[in-house]
């Protein structure tokens, strides 16, 4: 039961990442302007990337605590 919840959470995170790093969403940020001196698209990619890793860490550790 818990195992399935973990799998489902991970799969949905993976799908979400796929959507955020794919064509229509990324096109929104496809502009040469600089934000805080950094190109918009570059900033977007790395911010999403960092958030994704943070969520992953939380998800994995939380699941571990509950399963052990």
């Amino acid at each position, binding site marked *: 039961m818990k195992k399935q919840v973990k799998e489902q959470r991970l799969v949905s995170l993976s799908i979400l990442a796929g959507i955020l790093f794919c064509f229509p969403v990324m*096109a929104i940020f496809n502009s040469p302007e600089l934000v805080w*001196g950094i190109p918009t698209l*570059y900033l977007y990619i790395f911010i999403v990337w960092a958030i994704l*890793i943070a969520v*992953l860490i939380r998800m994995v550790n939380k699941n571990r605590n509950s399963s052990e």
Partner: protein
Amino acid sequence: MGSISVIAISFCYLLLLFGIAYWAEKRTVSGKRMLSNPYVYALSLAVYCTAWTFYGSIGRASQTGMDFLAIYIGPTILAPVWWIFLRKMIRISKVQGITSIADFISSRYGKNITLGGIVTLVCILGIIPYIALQIKAISTSLDFLIGSEAARHSSPLSAISNTPFYVTVVLAVFIVFFSTRKIDTSERHEGMVSAIAFESIVKLIAFLCGGIFIVYWMYNGLGDIFGQALAQPKLRALLTFNSSNGFSSWVSLAVLSMFAILLLPRQFQIGVVENVNEQHLNKAIWLFPLYLFLINLLVLPIALAGQLSFQSNVDPDFSILALPLSEHHHGLALLIYIGGFSAATGMIIVETIALSTMLSNNVLIPLIVGIPFLKRIILQYISKAVIYIRRFSIVVILLLSYGYFYEFAEGYSLVSIGLISFAAVSQFAPALLGGMYWKQGTKTGALAGILFGFAIWFYTLVVPSMVSVALLPQSIMSEGLFGLSALKPNALFGLTELDYLSQSFFWSMLFNAGAYFGVSLYTKANRQERNQAELFVNVFKYAKAYESSVVWKGKTRVKDVRLLMVKFLGAHGTKRLFDQVSKTYGVKLADEDQADSRLIVHVEKILSGLIGSASARMLVSSIVADNEISITEMVDVIKESQELIALNKELRLKTDELKKASDALALANTQLLKADELRDEFLYTVTHELRTPLTSIRAFSEILHDHPDIEPNKRQEFLHTMTKEIERLSRLISQVLDLEKLQSGNYNIHPEKLSLQSLIQDAIAPFKQVLADRHIQFSMQLEEQIPDLMVDRDALIQVITNLVSNAIKFCNPDHPAISITVSCHADQVHLQFADNGPGISDADATLIFEKFFQVHGQTPSATHGSGLGLAISKKIIELHHGHIWVEKSEIQGANFVVSLPLNTAAS
């Protein structure tokens, strides 16, 4: 910088690797395993980042901007579901003793030799250039570091060009030493993995140091670099995707890298074979993306800085080295060089181990074991032979790579070769992923898919590179094969919308997956394939009892198995293995006994780790069934156990049903008992009711009999009372009969169209006299225009008679009053019979319709009736689909209401 010192440092670094690997193996002996540390596992996975990442990403970023990131975003997107895919691959490999991707695919499709061989060849063809690329990176970076201005633009084959060769040789020694000392490839390479984890740290630190120096020392931070880049139209274009091609290449790169992270031989080696604990994935899932994040953070700024500083005068692949060198920071450049060196060597080490395992276990050993003559000779020295074959494979792989580098690696940037490799291993995706989740996939389907995909990959990616080095005529590229423009490698079937890589990927995957699924659906798997399919797809179900879920039907003696294993493990190792098996399964393994099938399966698994699953299967079947491969004899135990589970389920279902049925039975029984009780009570009441009038009749008749001289008017009175009692008796009996009929459902009503008014008149006619005698005030109100009803005349008259006689009985004796009201309410007609008697309490309102109910304390004994009238009335009204109830009347007594539906046409 002095060339001697740089070369010396390079070799010192290699020595350091030796030291770390040796130290880690020493620790293993003393029980402190490096591999049981999840961080070592997660870091060693970063072998994904090769010299291609270290140098090549910068080169690609200089040309096409941000799309290189897709190669690292892809694995990041996939990382969360490693817990599902990779864990399954690890479990399958552990259970089956699988040691390479070729073995994995060949095992899944019935341990097929051809399939394993083809996968190996595809890997070798696809990945040799990739290894060559690492050597090229080492060579070029050396040139940058050592060379004069002239060397930077000259070929790598300058005076120091022998260094790459010596590096290759040292690596070969390292790999041979740390991967082939033990014969068992499924044993983990503790030392090698620890060295790789160390290299991952080195390359990350070196890259970040270089990046920070360039961005914050040479330039004034990210804002400065991006600001300057924005001012130049050429560099400005690198900061966005161009709308037409950018996204399709981004998507195909991301998907390609998702496949690569699972399917590259080195990733399989580290991620699956070297994994000791599935729980380590929990760390790797986030640590690996974090590693990719860090190593990519500064790539674009470095690339832009390179372009800003050199204006394309320097190979952009090596900007990270050239920039510090241009400011004479030799120490930093050396650190960066070592970082790139570690990225390259790490890749070469792991990839060579993986490829050599495939080459020896899936091509060379099956060839030897498959030829009876060779087999007989080599079996004598098999354990030595296996080790030499593997060493030979390592040398062959490295020599091929070095040869490729020497001959061809000139014309290519790092990234393009890497991507061609990615595309090659992606061809395994349908057969491998399909095989893990789809039982119907067959060997023929897998073969067809891989061959189709490989052919298209070769034509669209390798042929162009052969044209570019003039191995093939230029006309193929410009006009297509045989002059057919649909066959242009760069725009196959006229697809010009996508870039060369995306269109190659699209077509090869389409044909590959199409052939795999299509052919699988039209071919039949043999028993062994089905067996393996079941074991792969449902690995988590069988993992614990793998040995008992496969059965060898063939018979052999324990002695034969022992003799076979002695050749591989030696007498001592074999004894230990047999002891362990007999302890686990509680079987005695005497030489002359017939071998337990679990022993044979276990032995086959051990052999798979040593020489690959296909050869292991051949060897075992050769002793088990007299050179006859007894695959067809294998009993599909799994099928049976599945059937057992299904049967169990059915049984449980049946039990549930049975329980339900018995519950229902118990309920019926209690109902029956209750009905019985009620019946007894009923009988008791009836006999009691019958006895009362009988007793009085008997008493009077005895008096008349004993006293013949009784006065005539007294006698008359007695006779009158007796008649009354007899009437009461007969009424009671007919009522009991009526009730019986009503209850058993034999009471038939015969509805006819009747006027309610005349019905009531008829019913109350017999009461006229009584009403007048007792001076009862009687009123009747009939609403006009009441439609005729479909009712049974006699039955309804009985009801009305009953209610009227009740009203007469119970009305106020001093000022008796009764009223009958008939009114229409929507689709109902209400007949109300009211009196001014004591009324019925709420508690009794429903009980009075029960049989023999008497309202206590209110009934004058003289008038008391049978107690059946209301019960019968209720039944009759219900037969007419109506209702009967009692409420407080307006004139202080009871008001019985009969409600009949207007359209009682039926019934």
